[in-house]
């Protein structure tokens, strides 16, 4: 369990994190979302014990990150933003250092190292110095470092930044596999990542929590949630069709995009798919496509953060 209570961080007069409170339980994969400068990295740095908060406190599995720092840090695996490491070292010597500094017993060390080498496919680059590695490998070395002691809590600041689509997919699968009995907090600005790996999302801007929900719950806030889009093969019929759809009681409004696609937004609590489908059959519209929209996270994100880019 991570408990964050009234967390505040000020840099001079600038308040980066403003009275943040939340809890994360085992099994949760929490996605931290927000525009750049929202306070995501600052919050993660405080939770990981790198920065002291100006006010408030953080308990990691019952240990206070400030007063029982070493006990709390033992339970955390942390990937800092940009996955820093020691460029002159090789992945092997670097991870051996981490194992020793984390106090992994010498008898266990060999086994744990081999496990993370295999998990992150590092075997090919073990003896190469880290500064000669590609960005993707460096990120994986950073992840290996965070996973080495099989921590209860994983805090990953932009874990897939700089990875190619295949590597992103692999890292997301890895997070998904580990999710069952761990607490995982990731920060990201990739919304598809939240949909892919998180079962909870917190959106913050200006250091405040603006939304705390499941990814599906956030999608449901989208005006596209349960909306229906259709396209006709004959463009001449579009105005009449749009008028007819507008008259349905389940439909609140419609929009027409430049490709001739009509999107019908549901009236509150209604599901317009079936009535529109029936209408189309009755009128014998020549349908090119008809489908149910799911919520659009990017649109929810924009409306919640109000385009905040500070």
């Amino acid at each position, binding site marked *: 369990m991570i408990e964050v209570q009234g967390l505040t961080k000020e840099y001079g007069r600038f308040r980066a994190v403003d009275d943040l409170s939340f809890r994360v339980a085992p099994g949760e994969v929490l996605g931290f979302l927000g525009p750049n400068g929202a306070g995501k990295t600052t919050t993660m740095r405080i939770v990981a014990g*790198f920065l002291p908060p100006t006010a408030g406190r953080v308990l990691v599995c019952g240990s206070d990150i400030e007063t029982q720092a070493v006990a709390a840090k033992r339970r955390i695996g942390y990937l*800092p*933003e940009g996955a*820093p490491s020691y460029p002159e070292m090789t992945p092997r010597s670097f991870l051996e250092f981490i194992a020793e500094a984390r106090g992994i017993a010498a008898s266990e060390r060999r086994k744990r190292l081999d496990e993370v080498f295999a998990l992150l496919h590092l075997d090919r680059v073990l003896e190469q110095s880290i500064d000669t590695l590609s960005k993707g490998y460096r990120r994986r070395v950073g992840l290996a*470092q965070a996973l080495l002691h099989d921590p209860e809590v994983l805090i990953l600041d932009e874990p897939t930044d700089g990875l190619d689509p295949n590597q992103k997919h692999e890292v997301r699968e890895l997070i998904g596999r580990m999710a069952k009995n761990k607490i995982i907090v990731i920060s990201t600005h990739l919304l598809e990542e939240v949909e892919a790996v998180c079962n909870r999302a917190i959106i913050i801007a200006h250091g405040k929590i603006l939304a705390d929900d499941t990814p599906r719950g956030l999608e449901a806030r989208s005006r596209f949630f349960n909306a229906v889009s259709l396209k006709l093969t004959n463009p001449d019929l579009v105005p009449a069709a749009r008028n007819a759809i507008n008259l349905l009681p389940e439909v609140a409004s419609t929009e027409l995009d430049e490709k001739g696609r009509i999107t019908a937004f549901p009236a509150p609590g209604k599901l317009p798919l079936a009535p529109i489908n029936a209408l189309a059959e009755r009128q014998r519209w020549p349908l090119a496509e008809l489908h149910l929209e799911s919520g659009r996270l990017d649109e929810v994100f924009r409306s919640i953060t109000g385009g905040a880019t500070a």
Partner: protein
Amino acid sequence: MSGVAAVFKRELASYFATPIAYVFIVIFLVLAGTFMFFFGGFYEGGQADLSAAGSFFYWHPWLYLFLVPALSMRLWAEERKSGSIELLMTLPLEVWQAVAGKFLAAWAFTAIALFLTFPIWITVNYLGDPDNGAIVAGYFGSILMAGGFLAIGACLSAATKNQVIAFILSVVACFLMLAPGLGVAQQLLSGIAPQWLVDGLASLSFQTHFEYISKGVIDLRDLLYFALLIGACLYANTIVLELKKAD
């Protein structure tokens, strides 16, 4: 303790993984030899001795004044610059363990460089019949003094992410710790300050304590001086890190 050992090993290995170690050792050996044989007039002196004025150990404070800050400047400034400090400070280590591990690694490295001057020791034994006890004391004093310089440099390196600034501040601070014990400075000061002040300042200087030890007089007070100085600087180093980790 295993935390200190882990940081120590990593740090010491990193000297040898980069050109720093080799450049430092070569320059240190060349300068140590040059000062002794050319400026010190070792042969002209006709004495098989390493502690006399102008001889081997005589130049060590000056060697260290520039070489040790070059070694210590990267200790923390580099970690700050590259961001690896965030990694180090989120490992389950107390800050003092990281401080001690890094300092001891730099100190051990200096000791290795100093040890590699052993051909000079062999040379004087070949040429004459030196007081080997005094030479051992000289090495001992030199190591202690290097520790003092390093501790100052480590503390100042923790205060900045810029290695050049760390270097310059360290050279100045080390010079201030050295100067009051120099004969020239004492003469200058005695014209304008009361004698007790001149003596008091001199007794705070590296130079004074190093001279005593390298004469072969190992006094508890001189040992305590270096121990306290190193301890105080490392304590300050820990506090600086705790106060400002991120920037």
